C-alpha cells in the first residue's frame, strides 16, 4: 500500500489510476470495433448503428480490435500482477460475505449506501470482481475465436468455435451492462471520478 506522509494514503494508488484509464481506453476501443465486426454477421436480431462503431466496416473493425488487443493484454497482465502482489485484490476486490452484500444491496436500492473514497463496499466488490472475471473470459474466448485451430484446445474448452463466439458476445453485453452501471454510480458520486485522476486522500471512518 502506498503511504503518504502522516499516514495518509490516496484513495487510488497511482498504478491503479494509470491502469484504469489505459484499460478503459482499450476496452472501449475493443467494444466499439467489436460492434463493427459483429455487424458483418449479426447473431442477434439487431445491428449497431454504424456511426457508433469504430472502423465502420469489417476489416477496419478487425484492425482496431487487434490493435487495442495488445494494449488490453499488456494492461490486463500488469493489473492482475499488481492486484495479486500489492494485496489490491485481497483487500479491495475480493467479494465479502452474502450478509454484507445483502445489507449493502438493500442500502443501494434505497439510495442510502454510503461511499467512502478508497473503500470498497460489498456491491462494488461484486461488480468489480464480476467485470474482471468477464474480461478474463473475454480475452480467453477472443483468443479461441482468433485461433480456433492453433489454439484448438482453448476453443474446445469453450465447446468449439461457434459456442466460444457466442460467449464472447454474451461477455461483451455483460461488460456493456457493467459500464452503464459504473457510469451511473460515478454520476451519483462525482468525486470518485476525481479520485481516479488525482491523488485524493482516502476517507477514513469519522
Amino acid at each position, binding site marked *: 500500500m502506498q503511504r503518504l506522509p502522516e499516514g495518509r494514503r490516496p484513495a487510488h494508488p497511482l498504478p491503479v489510476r494509470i491502469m484504469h484509464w489505459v484499460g478503459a481506453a482499450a476496452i472501449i476501443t475493443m467494444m466499439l470495433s467489436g460492434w463493427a465486426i459483429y455487424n*458483418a*454477421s449479426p447473431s442477434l436480431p439487431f445491428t449497431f448503428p454504424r456511426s457508433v462503431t469504430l*472502423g465502420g466496416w*469489417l476489416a477496419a473493425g478487425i484492425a*482496431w480490435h487487434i490493435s487495442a488487443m495488445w494494449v488490453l493484454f499488456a494492461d490486463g497482465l500488469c493489473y492482475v500482477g499488481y492486484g495479486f502482489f500489492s494485496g489490491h485484490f485481497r483487500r479491495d476486490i475480493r467479494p465479502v460475505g452474502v450478509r454484507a452484500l445483502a445489507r449493502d444491496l438493500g442500502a443501494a436500492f434505497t439510495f442510502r449506501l454510503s461511499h467512502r473514497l478508497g473503500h470498497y463496499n460489498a456491491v462494488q466488490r461484486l461488480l468489480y470482481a464480476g467485470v474482471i472475471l468477464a474480461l478474463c473470459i473475454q480475452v480467453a474466448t477472443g483468443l479461441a475465436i482468433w*485461433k480456433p*485451430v*492453433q489454439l484448438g484446445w482453448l476453443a474446445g474448452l469453450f465447446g468449439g*468455435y461457434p459456442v466460444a463466439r457466442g460467449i464472447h458476445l454474451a461477455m461483451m453485453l455483460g461488460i456493456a451492462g457493467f459500464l452503464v452501471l459504473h457510469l451511473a454510480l460515478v454520476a451519483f458520486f462525482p468525486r470518485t471520478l476525481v479520485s481516479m485522476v488525482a491523488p485524493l486522500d482516502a476517507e477514513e471512518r469519522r
Partner: protein
Amino acid sequence: MTRDPAAKPADLAPELARLGRRGLLRRGLTLGSLALLTGCGDLSTHSGIDAALWAMLRFDDRVQAALFSRTRLAETYPASRVTKPFRFNAYYPVWEVRPVPDNWRLAVAGRVTEKASWSLARLRALPQQGQITRHICIEGWSQIGQWSGVPLHLFLRRIGADLRARYVAFRCFDGYSTSIDMASALHPQTILALDFDWHPLTPEWGAPVRLRIPVKLGFKSAKNLQSIEVTNRYPGGYWEKQGYDWFSGV
C-alpha cells in the same frame, strides 16, 4: 441458380453505401479536423491513423506466422455434421457466378520448373485426399463441409516449385485473387479441391478447381482457379488490398 436482375440494386446497396461513405470520409478529411469522428480509421485513407492500423495488421501477420504450426491439424467431423444447406459466399451474389471457360486449364507460373498447364483430367489422375472441416468466415459465421482433391504440397512438388519461396498466389477467372504463405501451402490439409459434398465441383462452389485451406479464414479458399504462382514478391489479393489481414490464419 436463377438470374434475377431485380435483385441487383438491393444486393449492391451496402457496397454503394460504403463507397458513398468513403467519399464523404475523404471530404471530411480535407477539412482536416475531427479525424476520428468523421470515420477516419477505416483503412481507406492516407491518414496517420490508417497507416498505424495497417502497421498493426502487418505486425499481427508476423505474430500469426509465429503461432502457426505445420503439423497441427484442423478438427475434422463425421459426415453427419456437414452443414445443410451450405451457404454460398463470394464477393458477388450467386447469380453472377461464372461458368467454367471452354478449354479451361490450370496455369502454373513463377518459381517452378514444370510450367505446363494442367487439364482437369490430369489433376484427377493425381492422388486425392478428402476432408470434412469447418469453413470459418472472417465475418464470424462458420459451416462444416466436405471437400476432396489433390494435396497442394503434392502438387507443388509435382510442378517442381521452389518450396523455400515465400508466397503461393492464386488467380481466379471470376476476377478474384488471394495468396498464402508457403508454410500454410505445405500444410497436410491444404488441398486443391475438385469435389465438394462428394460430387464434382459446380461453378458456385468453385468449379473446376478451388483451394481448400482449413488453417485459414474462408476468403483464402479461392474458388474457380485459373492460375497458381510461386513467388517471393508479395502478391496481396482482392480482399487483402482492402484491409483483410493478409495472413488470416485460424
